[in-house]
């Protein structure tokens, strides 16, 4: 059994310790906001936070989260930066199919926490691990800047 904190609640899981966190979340715990896209940490659709750091759940074994805190997109609205980014994503109408966007938003929040006023190059760097096949990159950049501006202005969304 592996015990960890999931979205601020204690969670016990019986799956084999080598099982990637992604499949524990999706198949065992029913949290489907974290998406499967590649299984090789190539696309970013499964981005979650492990003790606050953005990681790819598809290559993070369950054993690696033992005793740690996992945050998924479902809990993002409890966070000020999370809410600002979600709101910016809506106002910019970023999503097309929307499948990758939970992962994009998770990466954008991580970027803005580390770099509140990112340059275009820093946005490139922070967001290039997340693939969007619909091609929403222009609007992602716009939404990151919108959220950044809002947060710098101290606005609470």
């Amino acid at each position, binding site marked *: 059994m592996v015990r960890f904190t999931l979205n601020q609640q204690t969670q016990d899981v019986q*799956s*084999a310790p080598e*099982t*990637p966190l992604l*499949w*524990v979340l*999706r*198949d*065992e715990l*029913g*949290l*489907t*906001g*974290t*998406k*499967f*896209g*590649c*299984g*090789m940490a*190539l*696309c970013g*659709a499964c981005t979650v936070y492990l003790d606050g750091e953005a990681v790819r759940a598809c290559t993070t074994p369950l054993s690696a989260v033992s005793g740690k805190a996992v945050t*998924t*997109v*479902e809990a*993002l*609205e409890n966070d000020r930066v999370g809410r600002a980014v*979600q709101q910016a*994503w*809506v106002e910019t*109408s970023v*999503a*097309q*199919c*929307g*499948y*990758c*966007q*939970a992962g994009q*938003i998770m990466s954008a929040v991580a970027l803005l926490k580390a770099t509140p006023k990112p340059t*275009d190059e820093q*946005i*490139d*760097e922070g*967001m*290039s691990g*997340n*693939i*969007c*096949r*619909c*091609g*929403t*990159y*222009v*609007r*992602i*950049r716009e939404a990151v800047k919108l959220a950044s501006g809002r947060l710098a202005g101290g606005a609470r969304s």
Partner: protein
Amino acid sequence: MNTRDKFSELSGVQRRHFLQATAGGLSLAVGLGGEVWAQGVVKKYGADSMPGGTVDNPLVFVSIAPDGLVTILAHRAEMGTGVRTSLPMVVADEMEARWDRVKVVQADSDEARFGNQNVDGSRSVRHFFVPMRRVGAAARQMLEAAAAARWGVPVGQVRAMQHEVLHTPSGRRLGYGELAAEAAKQPVPKGEALKLKSPKDFRYIGKGQVRVVDLQDIGRGKALYGIDARQPDMVFAVVARAPVVGAKVRTVTGREKALAVPGVLKLVDIPAYSGAPVFQPLGGVAVVARNTWAAMQGRAALQIEWDDGPNGSYDSVQYRKTLEAAARAPGKMLRNDGDALDAWKGAPEGRRVQAEYYIPHLAHASMEPPSATARVSADKAEIWTSVQNPHAARDGAAKALGLKLEQVTLHNLLLGGAFGRKSKPDYVTEAVLVAKTMEGRPVKLTWTREDDIHADYLHTVSVEHLEAVLGADGMPQSWLHRTVAPTISSLFQQGAMGEGPSEVGMTAINVPFVIPNVRIETGDVPAHTRIGWFRSVFNIPHAFAVQCFVAELAKAAGRDHKEYLLALIGPPRKINPTTLGDSWNYTESPERYPIDTGRMRDVVEAAARGARWGRKLPKGHGLGLAFAYSFMSYTATVVEVAVNDKGEVHVVAVDMALDCGPQVNPERIRAQMQGGAIMGLSLALMSEITFEKGRVQQGNFNDYVVMRHYEAPRTIRTHLVNDNIDVPPGGVGEPPVPPVAPALANAIFAATGKRMRDLPIRQVV
């Protein structure tokens, strides 16, 4: 709302009665574009030619609760174009419903009830804009009639407005909720009695102010895609699938080892298909487990020896030679104006131009891999999935299970991208075949990314051979286009070869250029894999070749590309596509949808203006232009590239112009244009599927490369041209793609003098 509630809603809501009345099954054939032939046979076009046609009965699509909440069914699936919002928005506008009091619910698969549900071919708005206007207008008039009856006043004195009906002389009002029950008993207005709004009264159509309905849920991880389906007691499966199309299992070893993997429950053999591939599973062994990961581990323990069959030697390097040989020999003649062969023979060497272009196989690689969940019992099946063609999926499942269509229910969730892949529901049939062995226990079957790329219905692979003879004025006197590619028909008919009308009808046979001698040919080459539709389909290779070749001719003639292109398009006129040998015309009536060269010119001018064509550029920069006419819409693109000393290509900006006729949701149209630009650049610069020993050589995003954030242009300017409600609607999802790759190649030529004739360009020239 939690996930469970959402799923019960999916199954429950459609049993409610719409407008609280029994649905009378009123299905009006919308009188668009039927043409009576001499023999008295009506040739059907457009929506009327599609299975299920159109339905415009408000009792089917609209319900109003006593509190006034209006529920509108979206019968077309959402894969990213916004149609799940746009069509209900059209209904809401016509019926004067307030959008904040509207709830959109996704319809199950039922074409007899809802009309055609196949979201393929950029047809949703094209075919359902007018029927959905009729749905909304009829609902509005029924509400007005109910209010007039209640008040005992002539209907001419009442007016529906923003969720209420107003009695104009007295100022009395009744809300939609109060009128719903009586409105449902009113006759459905039709024919002359049905009054569509005047476009000047539109509140949502054409405004671009309505956001897609799933936007909030998407950002919170609460939007449900096919792969997110959950049912109580569900188990999970993956398939060890034939690695070569047509391969059959010879021996399986390691079954015990697979079953010994913790969590693995069962192995299920899936038979290889017979006959043409169509949408049948490739066959193999399914592994059922307590979670997807355990199923994958079980699969890894299996060793399967395959009898590869006749496609086992498919090799992309060799096949290119086959394509080139066919492209250099006389082919099957499809259009012949004048005598292009004679013109070529008689021309001096200096006036001849020829070029050959190569466009490889492409995988769709939608971010959501194929997945389907099924529960099967002796006399019924229930499916949760994400498919473009729910009817084909349901029909395929019913046939595979030996059930009647009515015994199979299919709930279509959001599609996490599709691009044509999810028109082929082989994964749904796999899921029901596995679920059939599970005694009623639901099974979610998921494809890994490797499964998706290895067993896609790929975009074709093509060699395009073009020849032209230039006249003394530099304009072409003759044009020969020989297009050679394995055909999509091979999916449905074993051994089919040569491009068919729907393939050459995409930018090959129907070039509208002012050239006296035009010859279009196709060559016969066999297909060795499953060839399918990929966003904009055969327009990709054809537009790449045609639009690059025009730039090559302009160069040979020493003329500005844009001026040359406009001269080739010629003056504004409407061309009946049948006069160009195009019998297909995207299934639309040639009278209703002629090729309008004026609109073609307009988009070229708009893209060029947006990019400030002709301006002085920094060193290493170049502008490239291309246009395309596809899916009844007109697009042109200008790409600006910067190529550095190392030959690295950087896309600086894209200008895209589109004329799709009426613009229902301009904001979503612009989104499709931005996305189409990225997909076009992605396929032009980096993506390629190759085969060796019958097997796809790529497997994930490390070797099947698609565009990432840092590679994308920071500027994509979209130019919507000629918003015109008086012309029939064109498509939006696919048309942005075809002009992008040739515009990019033309830009690289402008920057470097190097002509890119092979895709992908691979970012370094």
